[in-house]
């Protein structure tokens, strides 16, 4: 079914119309901004700061473990630092960073002007920031959680973790969870209903498929972490419930089941957007569309589904019935198939493309090396007898850093380099970029490869020191050395970014000659993204010459208007007026934050949050002029 494009009207966006668009799409207000580019950049920069904090925590840990029987950090402080490291990386860096990249890129890739719910987007950012401020603000008052990033009871319960540290941890999760859910809902609706006309399901960029799968995973997985951390643990700690208290009918394993029902999908929530980035980078730098589009989409969707059926592999040592465990071994191994299919398709794409070895493509090759190795150790861990030796040792630490850093961080850094021209309007320095890549790659392998060996040689996780006599010292020394190489690689990257923002060569709209829509507008894009929204007829619109492609006309420029298209065929269905700048998302987030901060101390905090939040929401939705939308 082709769309009724005509050659009647000439598309010339006169200067007055462009100025009108610019005025309507202004985003000057710091607390009231609702444009997705600005909010996306905010998410990215804030998440990056948390990456640096988490990295400093990692360096402190590695310094302490660099020598046996070291006395740099005592047990209390070390336990706090490894808890902060894991919590910061998982909740305050990884998910928000992936969300932020999505918030920035998805509307551009789909050919629209903003996400479906811009105020929700702003609200989500402020809640993310509120959560980070809670954790680190409390840390400044020496109220620091120390029960690990997944805080198993009874250790994390009221009897064995008195004080407010774990309460702060549990409630911080509420913030980051709300933030992720907001972005998930808005991205899902944007991808499903606001695509450029002609962008059928079969033509959606792979990165948007990844964000769609990830958004649905967030929707079904995140509630579980709220139940585990807030309903079970926080209530057991503060108001005397007995969910995980074995003395009164509760069960510590209930917490583990519900937490890992979230926790396993969580790592795929972090990893799947990165897979989308890999495809985007490969397509641009191999100068061809990825091979096997349908298989890749099925693999992504399959990955999303199967990820929900694996959680018990975190609990193989808890003494569960054998027959149940065998199923989880099978499922945990089978998910390697979905990842494997994608790796094969990418390699096939690289074989048959014309490669241009940009820094971004370096990071993709680094991803393949590191992630596939992590996948291999994952297959080892899926096997129960092997897991019973390796679980809770540094072997697992090595595995998950290989899959998370290899699988998510390397593609992310590739993405930074690939989309840097689009974000900033300048080219990033390729030599510094490649230098930072090699430092990160070599440093990473030096740090984490030895940890496989020391784990199998008996070193458990979360130990603040270890005896000389066990011979673990040399491995740990090497790992500490590698950690500093990673740190220097990070410094080179930051220096490259700062320098290129000012001194990089000016970038035009499409410096990589890529095929997707984000490259069809200026670098950086104007707040309204495209002067006229595009009409597409291919997966790579910029590589396609077709009478079925063109521009949308007839949307008003004097208000923020976008197009709603049908779910399957992306046929235009209605126009959609989206809100402009407004302070109410910020006010609502402040209201919820005050109440939730208070709830760390008293249950009444939830009522405070509800009242203040309600006031914010009323302001948010209260009718404003103009009331009627004249066509």
């Amino acid at each position, binding site marked *: 079914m082709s769309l009724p494009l005509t050659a009647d009207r000439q598309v010339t966006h006169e200067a007055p119309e462009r100025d009108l668009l610019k005025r309507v799409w202004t985003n000057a207000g710091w607390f009231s901004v609702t444009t997705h580019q600005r909010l996306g950049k905010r998410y990215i920069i804030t998440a990056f700061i948390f990456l640096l904090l988490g990295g400093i925590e990692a360096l402190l840990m590695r310094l302490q473990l660099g020598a046996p029987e070291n006395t740099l950090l005592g047990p209390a402080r070390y336990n706090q630092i490894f808890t902060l490291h894991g919590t910061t990386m998982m909740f305050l860096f990884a998910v928000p960073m992936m969300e932020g990249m999505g918030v920035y890129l998805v509307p551009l890739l789909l050919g629209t002007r903003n996400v479906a719910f811009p105020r929700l987007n702003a609200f989500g950012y402020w809640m993310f920031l509120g959560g980070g401020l809670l954790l680190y603000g409390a840390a400044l008052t020496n109220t620091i959680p120390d029960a690990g990033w997944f805080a198993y009871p009874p250790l994390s319960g009221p009897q064995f973790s008195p004080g407010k540290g774990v309460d702060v941890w549990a409630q911080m999760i509420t913030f980051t969870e709300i933030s992720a859910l907001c972005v998930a809902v808005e991205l899902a609706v944007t991808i499903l209903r606001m695509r450029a006309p002609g962008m059928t399901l079969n033509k959606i960029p792979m990165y948007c498929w990844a964000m769609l799968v990830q958004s649905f995973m967030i929707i079904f997985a995140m509630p579980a972490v709220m139940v585990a951390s807030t309903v079970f643990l926080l209530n057991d700690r503060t108001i005397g419930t007995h969910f995980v208290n074995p003395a009164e009918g509760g069960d510590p394993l209930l917490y583990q089941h519900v937490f890992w029902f979230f926790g396993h999908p969580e790592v795929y929530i972090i990893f799947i957007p990165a897979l989308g980035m890999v495809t985007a980078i490969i397509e641009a730098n191999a100068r061809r569309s990825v091979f096997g589009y349908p298989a890749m989409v099925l693999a992504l969707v399959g990955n999303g589904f199967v990820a929900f059926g694996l959680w018990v592999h975190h609990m193989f040592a*808890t003494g569960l019935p054998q027959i149940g465990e065998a199923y989880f071994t099978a499922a945990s191994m089978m998910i390697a198939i979905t990842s494997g299919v994608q790796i094969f398709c990418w390699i096939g794409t690289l074989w048959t493309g014309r490669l241009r070895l940009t820094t971004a493509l370096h990071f993709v090759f680094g991803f393949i090396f590191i992630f596939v190795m992590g996948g291999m150790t994952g297959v080892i861990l899926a096997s129960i007898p092997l897991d019973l030796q390796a679980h809770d040792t540094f072997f697992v630490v090595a595995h998950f850093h290989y899959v998370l850093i290899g699988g998510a961080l390397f593609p992310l850094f590739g993405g930074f380099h690939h989309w840097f021209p689009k974000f900033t309007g300048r080219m990033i320095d390729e030599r510094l970029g490649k230098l930072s890549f090699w430092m990160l790659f070599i440093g990473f392998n030096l740090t984490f490869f030895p940890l496989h060996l020391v784990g199998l040689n008996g070193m458990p996780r979360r130990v603040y020191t270890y005896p000389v006599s066990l011979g673990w010292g040399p491995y740990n020394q090497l790992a500490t050395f590698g950690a500093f190489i990673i740190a220097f690689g990070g410094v080179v990257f930051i220096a490259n970014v700062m320098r290129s923002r000012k001194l990089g060569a000016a970038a035009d709209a499409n410096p990589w000659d890529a095929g997707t829509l984000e490259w069809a507008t200026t670098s950086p894009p104007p707040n309204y993204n495209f002067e006229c929204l595009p009409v597409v007829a291919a997966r790579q619109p910029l590589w396609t010459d077709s009478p079925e492609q063109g521009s949308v006309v007839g949307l008003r420029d004097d208000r923020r208007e976008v197009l709603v298209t049908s779910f399957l065929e992306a046929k235009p269905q209605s126009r959609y007026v989206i809100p402009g700048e407004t302070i109410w998302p910020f006010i609502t987030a402040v209201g919820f934050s005050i109440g939730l901060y208070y709830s760390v101390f008293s249950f009444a905090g939830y009522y405070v949050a509800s009242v203040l939040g309600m006031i914010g929401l009323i302001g948010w939705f209260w009718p404003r002029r103009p009331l009627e939308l004249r066509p």
Partner: protein
Amino acid sequence: MRSVACGMLAASALCAQQSALDPGGRNAQAIHSLLVAFFGLLTTIFVIVIIMAAVPLFRRHRGIEQEPLERTHQPGEATEKRLGLVVGIATAITVLILIALVVVSVSVGKASQGPSRPGKRMTVEVTGNQWWWYVRYYNDQASRIVVDANEIHVPVGEQVMIRGTSNDVIHSFWVPGLQGKRDLIPSRVNTEWLEADRPGYFRGQCAEFCGLQHAHMAMWLVAHSPADFQAWMDNQLKPAVAPSNSDEQRGQQVFLDSACAICHTIRGTRAAGQVGPDLTHFASRLTIAAGTLPNNKGNLGGWIADPQNIKPGTHMATVPVKAEDVQPLLDYLESLK
């Protein structure tokens, strides 16, 4: 590895590995063999995948098989068909390999985790505490039940069933040289089987983060020949050695009169505390404070004088001992063989 570490220590008894890569019993051996097989296969697959990924890097300038991509940036149909075949075959091989790995894992799981044969076995009950191990050798005859701490002794060639639970938080019982780990969970009893194939010393460590001194919650599992084990058990069944001189007599008196007796038991005396480890045969153990220090008078003196200095956060109280009572107390405790 072992010899390097061993060479650095005077007391060879403490020189044993805590390693899954150095199995000393049938369970750990089965796991080790499976690990070697997995490692070999997966390394091969990894190398193949990486080579396949790296080839395009070297081909790109030579342009072999690289058709000039048409305006749509799409290779020809023939190329795509061939790629489809290759990816399909690779996926099918992957599926088959994974199925095989699942089957092998379940099979080795059954073999390594269950009892290997019916019949005679020894039962040892282990209870995790912050940060020490309560050990109880079960016996049908109540008079032959022995309570100990932080060390487990077993005869070579006999199946041992470990029944584990916890008094406080979740711990994990792990002696890598003999078997995988099993979590110790309050209000639950988990079991695992292990069997030593040779005499020796196997170090174990708690493998579930359990608080401040998780890093210092280790244990020794000592495997004896059956005759030696019997001798050891016979000794354990006896009550504590009586003091043999006036210093030890004084030491015992200090122990019983101070707070020590509130937490610790010494069978044969009136000390019957249940809070801390049983000390009846304390001097026969290799280490103090759950594997933290070698067991000798100097270390023991330091431990008693200031436990927080050695194991910050430990629940062992700092019991004041008058200066003139210290040596007699140490003499007494080190006489409890």
